[in-house]
């Protein structure tokens, strides 16, 4: 065996390959095959990678926080919600709009005000089961989903049905005497804030690790 290995010298010249050059270790045939493959791979990558990046780009694109004026602070009370329509995606027509339910912070049900984004409560209408639009029923002080019977209480916590976490909320702030609705955020069953998640993703216990923060999450300004 050892002898055989010795036979295979790295130099083409020693291996009696016709047209070999002194000191050459790679035959011209191997060089050509290798470079044709390499160029083929480069050409494929030159077409494939941009196309892939083009399709995947939006996943990594951070969104800009948008704040939308919904009226004066006096328009809202703390014992019931007023529906407001805001735009969450521009350029999409009706589809980019969504309804939010807005009320004043109510210390009795909400506890102390957490920060400057907490003077008003703006509840998203996206059901946290699979995303159908919920409606607020004033008589029962409940949010009700038409799809699979999800029910939420006055602060948006789940009181029945399949939803996995309380209704999402929007940041609110008062600027120059106007109430503005900002980006959406998610909450767990103790109403702790998380970056916005999609419906169906629980945030209690292991859920917050199974469904990580997305790259598209906008930064508050």
């Amino acid at each position, binding site marked *: 065996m050892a002898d055989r290995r010795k036979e295979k010298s790295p130099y083409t010249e020693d291996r009696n390959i016709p047209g070999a050059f002194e000191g050459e270790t790679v035959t011209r045939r191997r060089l050509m095959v290798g470079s044709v493959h390499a160029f083929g791979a480069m050409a494929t990558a030159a077409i494939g990678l941009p196309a892939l990046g083009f399709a995947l780009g*939006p996943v990594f*694109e951070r969104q800009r926080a948008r704040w939308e004026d919904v009226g004066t602070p006096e328009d809202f009370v703390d014992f019931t919600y007023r529906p407001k329509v805001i735009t969450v*995606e521009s*350029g*999409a027509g009706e589809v980019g709009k969504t309804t939010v339910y807005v009320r004043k912070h109510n210390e009795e049900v909400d506890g102390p005000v957490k920060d400057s984004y907490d003077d008003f409560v703006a509840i998203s209408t996206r059901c946290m089961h699979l*995303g159908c639009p919920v409606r607020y029923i004033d008589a029962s002080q409940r949010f009700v989903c038409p*799809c699979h019977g999800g029910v939420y209480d006055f602060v948006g916590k789940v009181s029945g049905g399949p939803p996995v976490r309380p209704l999402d909320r929007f940041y609110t702030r008062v600027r120059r005497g106007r109430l503005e609705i900002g980006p959406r955020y998610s909450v767990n069953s103790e109403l702790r804030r998380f970056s916005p998640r*999609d419906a169906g993703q629980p945030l209690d216990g292991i859920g917050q690790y199974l469904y*990580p923060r997305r790259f598209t999450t906008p930064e508050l300004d």
Partner: protein
Amino acid sequence: MPKLKLPNPIPDQLRPRPQRPGEGNGRKSTKDVVIESGRDAGISVVDWVDERTSLSGAARWTMFRKVPKGTNWFYTLGSATMFAFLSQAVTGVFLAMYYDPSPTRAYESTRHITNEVFLGEFVRGMHKWGATVMMVLIFLHMGRTFFFGAYKYPRELNWVVGVVLLVLTMIMSLTGYLLPFDQRSFWATIVADNINGTGPFLGPYLADFLRAGPEFGATTLARFYSIHMLLVPGAIAALIGVHLYLVAKLGTTAPPWVKAEEPEQLRTEKV
């Protein structure tokens, strides 16, 4: 056994009349010359192509295969699925002539197809109901191959190709559902997207990919449209090619109730 009389493939009027003695002095009438050269032209075109491509061999290889005893109507379910797909492809191409995948125009253009375009309701109906027909047929075909044991050696790979075809067909159903862009389409897609989002770790990013962003937006519809009409149909067409190649290569399975016939020799030896 009396020989079966086959139906006459050429109408009598077109058949060259046999010449009577003395007629034409050995020359043919103009009509006969025209018929004959017409026939020859057809043959020589086919010959010309075949000489340069050898396609007739491939055609014979795919069409004239040995088929096991007991082959029955259930074996047509695969071809039925394929024709459902072809029907979807054809009607889809024509729907695309009127459909406009923009979030502000999609619903209106679908309404236009249904209510105003000549035969629009019919072609749209074919595409819409055909989608369901294809789903039903693909499952029946899958059931046939399963219950006949056709997934066993050496046809496992064809089963795997079939599973990929099934998933791709379902992707067609999902992405096509959004296109009419009415309330049902829209909310069903939101729900479907959120279901995709519930996959652990990668789910949230998959949902962002499908929507082209964190919310259902201006490009979501275009994205679904391009997946529905370009990406997946291309993949399905290519995989049907692979699927049928394997069917032609391996032959189809006999039904499980058909026992292999013992060779004559063995039978006599046993007695």
